[in-house]
């Protein structure tokens, strides 16, 4: 299929994504950091073998205009790094959440949450991505999508609270690889 194929369904999905994002109001980046840290910490408390210093792994970068990045692990997964969150299953997690405080709330600008499955397991990875803008070919690259183990396959997704994406990874995705 041509990469320029017009798909009205995809365009409609992206419009819905944009509308959902406009309506989504998140807590402050600092509070989001607390929620993410507590989620990972409580999960870590239940792990049997993998050790993660959640406090040391999570990082927050903020600028004077309210933009914020909450990051854990490398920006691009190229194999296990010391900065990854490691699961008992042998899988690893890295993510970046970008936010902007505005008035009384915080808007979600984008996210990437990369779960790399244990060695020799398939799909080898699952990544949740939220892009900032609508792509010229929304069929190939929906604004919000899921990679089911292939960088060029992007299945449309709905924009989620990033804490919920992490809950899905911790309690739904990884549990299939235990």
């Amino acid at each position: 299929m041509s990469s320029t194929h017009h798909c009205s369904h995809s365009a409609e999905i992206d419009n819905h994504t944009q509308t959902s994002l406009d309506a989504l109001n998140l807590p402050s980046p600092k509070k989001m950091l607390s929620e993410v840290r507590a989620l990972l910490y409580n999960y870590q408390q239940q792990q049997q073998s993998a050790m993660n210093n959640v406090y040391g792994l999570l990082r927050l970068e903020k600028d004077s205009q309210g933009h914020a990045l909450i990051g854990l692990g490398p920006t691009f997964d190229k194999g296990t790094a010391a900065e990854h969150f490691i699961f008992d299953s042998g899988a690893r997690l890295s993510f970046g959440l970008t936010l902007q405080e505005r008035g009384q709330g915080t808007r979600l600008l984008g996210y990437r949450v990369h779960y790399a499955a244990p060695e020799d397991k398939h799909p080898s990875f699952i990544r949740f991505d939220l892009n900032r803008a609508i792509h010229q070919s929304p069929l190939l690259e929906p604004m919000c999508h899921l990679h089911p183990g292939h960088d060029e396959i992007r299945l449309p997704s709905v924009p989620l609270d990033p804490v919920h994406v992490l809950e899905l990874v911790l309690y739904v995705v990884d549990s299939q690889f235990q």
Partner: protein
Amino acid sequence: MAETQSPFQIAQRMELRGATEHSWAVVLSGSPTQDVQSTGLTAELEALTSIPVRTIFEQTLSIGDLRNSLHSPSNDIAIVVVGDWTEEEWRAIDINRSALERTGTILLWMTTDQLGTLTTAAPNIRSFIGVSMFLLGPDGSAMTETDRSLRISELEDHYGLTSEQMLEAAQAGQISSEPQALEWLILVGRGDLIP
């Protein structure tokens, strides 16, 4: 106790000690004017324990008011911001301590000087607190210069662009809309170029 601990570490220690019920603790603030809300302690405690946290401010002490506040409700985590309480007032609290007993934690927010007064005048409350005393420090999760440089290098390698070239593209409205590109703009202090 000279070592400071971040709000998360304090919440973590309180939770690990099982100190989220029927317990007393002290958090020493950096200065008497430090606002407890701005420290993130409330958010960390709520996130980690899933128990609601409430701040009670008592500039001038009334034991009746304090008791009422602590019991409405009595099962949350109550952060009591200690005001200018005198030794005499601390003695009165110490005598009436059973009236203050509750299911949830009482966390006293005070300065080192106020702790000195408490220790002198309220030995029973001091024994309730035991080793649950924490010196509040900064959050500690801010990205260091090293973290930032490493992330920027990763992005430059991946996209085959210098940060300057990326900024030129962003200013021309030609930056990728991928989440990593947004991160790059924030890391170089140009979040304002995010479309």
